[in-house]
């Protein structure tokens, strides 16, 4: 028998399981141009829909005249709110408990808002039709500032009763959405009032956008003969979309099939439900034809799912020695015209209450006020778990400001305040129970790797040279230590629209020893087909290369809440391992039968069950699979399948230590990233190659956000950054090489100890880049300047500090 002669090491390697930098199975099709993205889908008789969008940020719609548009050859229909109203589809629920207009119902609340849906035989005809739809607008006063919104007499949401509470409690003003609190208000204020040292900062985390390279889109196909609706689309949560479509359309859920094909990046942009999906479904029902809707880049940047727009005010107190005693944070959150944040229901500000960061802070208080303005709705988690980027940026800036106040080294200040290894599981002042961590080890490793003391000495020397007129370049050392909170989450406190945030995996082993596994998640580039097969390979002892992973088809995959907030590995990855263990349990009984011993007398070893104490007597998983389908085994059903729905007992808490070294030309404002070191601890590492790739990508998106990327509005509510001409996406030229490193602190409650990594580098990267800029100017009196640090703003920072005098 061939298996017999292979040594154990070879058998482990053959599986390509956990810890293997397995090459991606997705890449063959992508490198040959054979991906299947939503815009690649072509169906017989397919027609196209596109929107008439509002040029105004706030206006009443007096009339819409589609007569001329309907004269255009190829234009088939023009839908307005009036057409959707009889179906009850002119408004739709948002994920945040609010409602949103599908098509403008009497007024528009942001520039680019969907006003009418033109359906035509091809895209050119649709574009011609859009030009000819006459909309008569009456302009209304525009509010783009949330502080002004809370003072103004102008009511943005006339559809809401100003005195009625919102989805998250009482409202303070017609333009106010919610107040959300965590922690202890009075005790925190008391500590702050009596503290040795208090540092304060006001910071604006600007509005930006996930901007995946593929925009959002869908194809809706209503088969009137069979009563079945098929909806292909760029959905990060296909099962949730099916449920939402069923609830709002009244079509029974078994008659709806939602398919997420290949997705060209998501980063949070593709979590929500958008008017384009609803209109495509309606248009398909009306015309009886498949309808495709694909955003163009301007539509994408202007309307679907912005991220952040948090005005944060913080106070932090410490003893003279630097031990932090309290933290207070107030956020004014600009949610735009509708509250369409994608957060678990009970968390209208996401997990912003992770803002005590990696530090042992005894007392804290957080208050968030959500506000309506005349901007696009959204507030999604752009490459982060719910609002965690905001939280980590906040605390990592507060630490730096406190270090200035204490005249202390910021690395040392972090070190003396970290939650210690022996304190885990650690309950933070704002409520979360951190499952595990070893922050000091990671921090020491990072500082040593970059020769932190050497860098500080070089920086001091540079400042002297600058003051002596020998150089016009300053050096910044950016530090950040982050703790993420990912893997939403326990069903007891995490749901979206009432759907518990578990996830799932279903496995079928084929008779010849290969398998298919289906999950409730959906890859958007993370490489699930590669990594989930690795988890299974280690669990069930069949090679990853013999396991197909399938996601995204609601007719075949088990129900799950999808991929965002780094939840795939923590939740669906756990379900995969648990389903694998069910397979293994049955396999054990089959093996025992075949080996004619008691169940307890065999044990699992890599790819087989062996008789305890007699390793020469074994059955491989391949043998067992065959037997499962071909032998009548008393007391055991034929077949080898399992399904697991996994409700995680807790979130996971990946962490990391980042250091960035920059040189900044004071006269041009141009920064040069000299070095970026990133240490990540994501627990058990499934595929180091993919982890490294995720870190590179997350850091690059962090660079973008910190250094220039924003959705900016003028006072009239016009989007000033609606194309890639104005919206910064870094090119290969601007991006440095990153040094990656790691420690491994497995999650104690996750079946394989993995924590998720896709978003960590973004969460930790943004403050690291920003801190590098701010640190360069610290010797000249800088405390805080807002992102994005583009060349112009860096120049202005230098100028305001008198460095051009």
């Amino acid at each position: 028998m061939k298996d017999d002669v292979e040594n154990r090491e070879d058998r482990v390697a053959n599986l390509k399981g956990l810890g293997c930098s397995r090459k991606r199975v997705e890449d063959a099709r992508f490198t040959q141009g054979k991906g299947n993205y939503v815009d690649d889908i072509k169906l017989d008789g397919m027609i196209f829909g596109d929107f008439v969008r509002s040029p105004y940020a706030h206006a009443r719609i007096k009339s819409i005249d589609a007569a001329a548009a309907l004269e255009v050859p190829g234009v088939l229909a023009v839908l307005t709110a009036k057409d959707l109203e009889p179906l009850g589809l002119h408004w739709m629920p948002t994920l945040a408990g609010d409602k949103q207009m599908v098509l403008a119902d009497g007024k528009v609340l942001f520039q680019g808002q969907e006003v009418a849906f033109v359906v035509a035989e091809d895209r050119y005809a649709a574009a011609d039709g859009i030009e000819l739809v006459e909309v008569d607008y009456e302009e209304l006063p525009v509010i783009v500032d949330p502080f002004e919104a809370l003072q103004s007499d102008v009511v943005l949401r006339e559809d809401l009763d100003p005195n009625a509470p919102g989805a998250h409690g009482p409202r303070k003003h017609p333009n106010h959405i919610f107040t959300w609190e965590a922690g202890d208000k009075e005790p925190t204020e008391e500590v702050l009032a009596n503290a040795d040292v208090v540092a304060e900062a006001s910071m604006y985390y600007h509005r930006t956008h996930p901007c995946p390279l593929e925009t959002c889109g869908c194809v809706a196909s209503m088969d009137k003969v069979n009563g079945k609706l098929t909806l292909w689309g760029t959905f990060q949560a296909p099962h949730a979309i099916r449920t939402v479509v069923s609830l709002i359309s009244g079509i029974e859920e078994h008659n709806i099939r939602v398919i997420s094909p290949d997705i060209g990046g998501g980063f949070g942009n593709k979590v929500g439900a958008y008017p384009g999906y609803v209109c495509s479904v309606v248009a398909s029902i009306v015309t009886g034809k498949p309808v495709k809707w694909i955003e163009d880049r301007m539509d994408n940047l202007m309307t679907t799912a912005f991220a952040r727009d948090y005005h944060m005010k913080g106070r932090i107190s410490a003893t003279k020695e630097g031990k932090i005693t309290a933290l207070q944070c107030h956020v004014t959150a600009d949610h735009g015209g509708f509250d369409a944040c994608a957060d678990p229901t009970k968390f209208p500000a996401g997990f912003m209450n992770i803002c005590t960061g990696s530090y042992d802070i005894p007392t804290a208080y957080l208050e968030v006020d959500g506000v309506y303005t005349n901007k696009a709705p959204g507030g999604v988690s752009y490459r982060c778990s719910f609002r965690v980027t905001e939280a980590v940026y906040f605390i990592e800036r507060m630490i730096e400001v406190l270090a200035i106040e204490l005249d202390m080294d910021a690395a040392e200040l972090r070190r003396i305040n970290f939650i210690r290894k022996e304190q885990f599981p650690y309950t933070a002042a704002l409520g979360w129970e951190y499952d595990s961590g070893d922050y000091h080890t990671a921090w020491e490793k990072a500082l040593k790797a970059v020769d932190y003391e050497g860098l500080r000495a070089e920086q001091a020397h540079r400042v002297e040279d600058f003051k002596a007129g020998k150089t016009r370049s300053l050096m910044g050392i950016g530090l950040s230590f982050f703790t993420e909170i990912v893997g939403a989450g326990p069903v007891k406190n995490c749901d979206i629209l009432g759907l518990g945030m578990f996830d799932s995996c279903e496995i079928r082993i084929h008779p010849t020893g290969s398998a298919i596994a289906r999950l409730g998640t959906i890859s958007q580039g993370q490489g699930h087909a590669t990594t989930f097969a690795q988890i299974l390979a280690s669990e069930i002892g069949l090679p990853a290369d013999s396991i197909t992973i399938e996601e995204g088809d609601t007719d075949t995959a088990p129900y799950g809440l999808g991929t965002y907030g780094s939840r795939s590995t923590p939740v669906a990855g756990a379900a995969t391992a648990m389903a694998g263990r069910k397979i293994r349990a049955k396999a054990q009984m089959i093996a025992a039968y075949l080996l004619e011993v008691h169940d307890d007398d065999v044990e699992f070893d890599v790819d087989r069950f062996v008789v305890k104490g007699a390793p020469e007597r074994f059955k491989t998983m391949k043998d067992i699979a065959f037997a499962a389908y071909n032998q009548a085994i008393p007391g055991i059903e034929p077949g080898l399948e399992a399904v697991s729905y996994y409700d995680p007992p807790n979130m996971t808490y990946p962490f990391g230590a980042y250091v960035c070294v920059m040189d900044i030309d004071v006269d041009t404002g141009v920064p040069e990233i000299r070095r970026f070191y990133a240490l990540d601890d994501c627990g058990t590492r499934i595929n180091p190659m993919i982890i490294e790739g995720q870190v590179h990508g997350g850091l690059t998106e962090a660079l973008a956000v910190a250094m220039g990327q924003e959705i900016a509005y003028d006072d009239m509510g016009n989007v000033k950054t609606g194309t890639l001409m104005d919206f910064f996406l870094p090119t290969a030229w601007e991006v440095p090489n990153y040094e990656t490193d790691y420690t491994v602190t497995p999650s104690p409650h996750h079946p394989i100890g993995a924590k998720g990594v896709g978003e960590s580098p973004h969460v930790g990267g943004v403050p690291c880049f920003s801190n590098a800029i701010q640190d360069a100017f610290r010797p000249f009196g800088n405390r805080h300047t807002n992102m994005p640090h583009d060349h112009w703003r860096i120049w202005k920072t230098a100028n305001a500090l008198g460095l051009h005098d």
Partner: protein
Amino acid sequence: MSKKMHITLTVNGKEEEFLAEPRELLIYTLRERLNITGPHIGCETSHCGACTVTLNGKSVKSCTMFVAQADGAEVTTIEGIGGPDSLHPLQEAFKEHHGLQCGYCTPGMITRAVKLLEENPNPTEEEIRFGMAGNLCRCTGYQNIVKSILAAAAEMNAAKEAAE
């Protein structure tokens, strides 16, 4: 509607002939008319390069070129670069060095890289970063793309040397 124009075009070695409106964009011709869906649409303003093709020996962003301007041209897309039985060394290298994630930019990226290595068979990292700056990737941070192109260049040069 303006009068349709008579267009002939060679795409991946195959001659195509059709009537098109003057406003028809080359990417539309490729994707909708010829069903060549490797090149993607990412920005429609020439910034992202997802639609990159080779046209008469030059890298071109097909989202901002009218097909009428391409009349008589030779066009190569990712589909013409290498298939399952004969992968181009760049396709191999992108797989080997994790030079892609979501795959959306990849066809344009590889198409551009093929051209870059034709123009400069032995590029430095800096030359690659400059030469690829017209192709955006949101996933990889470019580090592994650069690595892939360097590896492919080395591979192609070694193969060339061996052949000589």
